[in-house]
């Protein structure tokens, strides 16, 4: 898929898509803010720059489909549930937290959505879920998000192997942002993700586009075939992490960070009037959410 002009991306989008993109962007920005103010503890990994991936994918998924997310999962969650209140409450341990504040940023379960903080661990689990779906709910699939660095874990290959052998309805979405924490992909991954996926008998697509429509068009038929029993699909998004790994820990050179920012879908110049309006709305909405959630009492633990 050739890459379209960057400016076009946001203009082509429906209000719904654009609103979601902006919601995630402002949610993540606000989170870094709150961290800076000491209002969030522990760790959190924002998906700044990568928001378009779950925004593009979510309409391809139905209710019966499972999503497995990872440490960098706020966008995945918001794209599926549009629930910034529940998520922020979870991250800040307030009433209404989606997991009561027990899981926090990295450990979230809601319906058929689950994230956990150990890299690679979710892939065999997703394969198991896909096995169940294959037989019990044919047509449904399990989709798991992982980063490029997570391809270092042996669990990934054990899962791909079984998924291919058993033709499981599993989609592995790799957000290859060229870095794992501080380690460039080239220093942690020999060969390529595409060759690895194919070598394990998985279908594979590399996606350079950041345009949700293009992405959906390219993936819809592939997802469909996976649903119909063609076996696992690995999709690799070439993407860019424009923020730090978690908070204040970006060791990249100014030039590398500039290079990442150059690939941001968020227009540098502010974009069209529609964009400006929706951007302001999203920002304001996130402020409302934050104000409301941080005003809540601390979450209580059940049981």
């Amino acid at each position, binding site marked *: 898929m050739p890459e379209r002009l960057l400016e076009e991306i946001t203009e082509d989008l429906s209000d719904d898509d654009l609103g979601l993109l902006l919601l995630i962007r402002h949610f993540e920005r606000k989170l870094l803010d709150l961290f800076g103010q000491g209002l969030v503890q522990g760790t959190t990994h924002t998906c700044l720059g990568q928001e378009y991936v779950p925004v593009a994918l979510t309409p391809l998924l139905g209710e019966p489909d*499972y999503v497995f997310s990872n440490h960098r999962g706020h966008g995945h969650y918001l794209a599926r549930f549009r629930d910034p209140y529940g998520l922020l409450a979870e991250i800040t341990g307030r009433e209404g*937290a*989606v*997991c*009561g*504040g*027990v*899981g926090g940023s990295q*450990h*979230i*379960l809601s319906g058929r959505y*689950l994230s*956990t903080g*150990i890299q690679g*661990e979710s*892939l*065999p*689990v*997703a*394969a*198991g*879920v*896909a*096995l*169940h*779906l294959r*037989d*019990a709910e044919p047509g449904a699939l*399990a989709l798991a998000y992982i980063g490029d660095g997570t391809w270092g874990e*042996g*669990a990934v290959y*054990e*899962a791909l*192997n*079984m998924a291919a*052998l*058993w033709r499981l309805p599993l989609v592995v979405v790799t957000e290859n942002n060229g870095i794992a924490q501080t380690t460039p992909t080239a220093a942690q991954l020999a060969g390529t993700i595409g060759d690895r996926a194919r070598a394990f008998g998985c279908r594979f697509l590399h996606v350079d586009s950041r345009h949700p429509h293009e992405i959906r068009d390219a993936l819809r038929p592939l997802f469909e075939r996976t649903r119909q029993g063609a076996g696992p699909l690995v999709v690799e998004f070439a993407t860019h992490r424009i923020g730090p790994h978690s908070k204040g820990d970006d060791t990249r050179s100014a030039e590398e960070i500039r290079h990442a920012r150059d690939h941001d879908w968020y227009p540098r110049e502010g974009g069209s009037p529609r964009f400006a309006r929706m951007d302001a709305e999203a920002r304001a909405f996130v402020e409302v959410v934050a104000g409301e959630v941080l005003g809540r009492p601390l979450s209580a*633990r*059940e*049981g």
Partner: protein
Amino acid sequence: MRVAESLNRALHEVLAEDPSVRVLGEDVLDPYGGAFKITKGLSSRFPGRVLATPISENGIVGVAGGLALAGGKAIVEIMFSDFVALAFDQIVNFASKSVSMYGRPLRLPLIVRCPSGGGRGYGPTHSQSLQKHFIGVPGLAVYEVSPFDDHRELFGEMLARGEPCLLFEDKILYTRQLFGGGVADDLFQYDVLPGAGGVARVYVDDPEQADCVIIAPGGLAHRALAAMRTLLLEREVSCLLLVPRRLYPFDVTPLSPLLERAGAVVVAEESTAGGTWGAEVAHQVHSRLWGRLRRPVSLVHSAASVIPAAAHLERDVLVQDTAIVSAVQELLP
């Protein structure tokens, strides 16, 4: 019936009664039916529900966790329990965390079967008793097969917990007969201690008249029995043997009256010493029966060593009945 057959039969019944149960493991299909034949006949009788997997212990347990998460029930066979080390992350960090770390209970009916223990000359990486390394994880129950137990009931109990369970199966039991009808042998009878969650008690005449209580998981049952025989016939010491079905969570409370009456307690297990299940039991006993025991609980373990392959060296390392005899004798006046 041998214990292997009893386990196999129990699995047959479980799969027949509950169509949501699947069995996964290496080489579990017919005609082989698993390295120890415990899954024999299952794949023929329940096609599609028994999966022979690649050699991927971590992955298999993860897949089973996924099945359980999605509404199924999964029973994994780890060919030799030593290999469960490879699945430690999926067991401790995924399955047992998931049942509670999302702020509300999640059902995850998963059994990981672990053929364990030595005495068969398989050598250092195929003979260990790794139970102790899995004790004390909230959300993870640890069971052990006993020749006194009802294995259908055992599997039922584990699946009903709705959380991951490890089942250790001492390989030495597979070829031994299951006890039945309350008779252990010509000297000893057995029954189930009421209200203790499946603890078998084995005794001469009266469980309340023992000089010493031996607590041991199923794999040690025959060695404990042999020790009790020696003690009875050669020293006139009568022992009560308690064999729990579940090692963790474990609550010594229902056993306390028996322990207190005897005043002397030995806990035997095949593991090496250090951070053992036995030390945990001992601590509970000491705390609960403080001032009411004649001597401290005595722990019997294997020697602090790898388990050699050669039979004569292996015997020197592993717990034998003689070690139990000595431990009991040292406790008595």
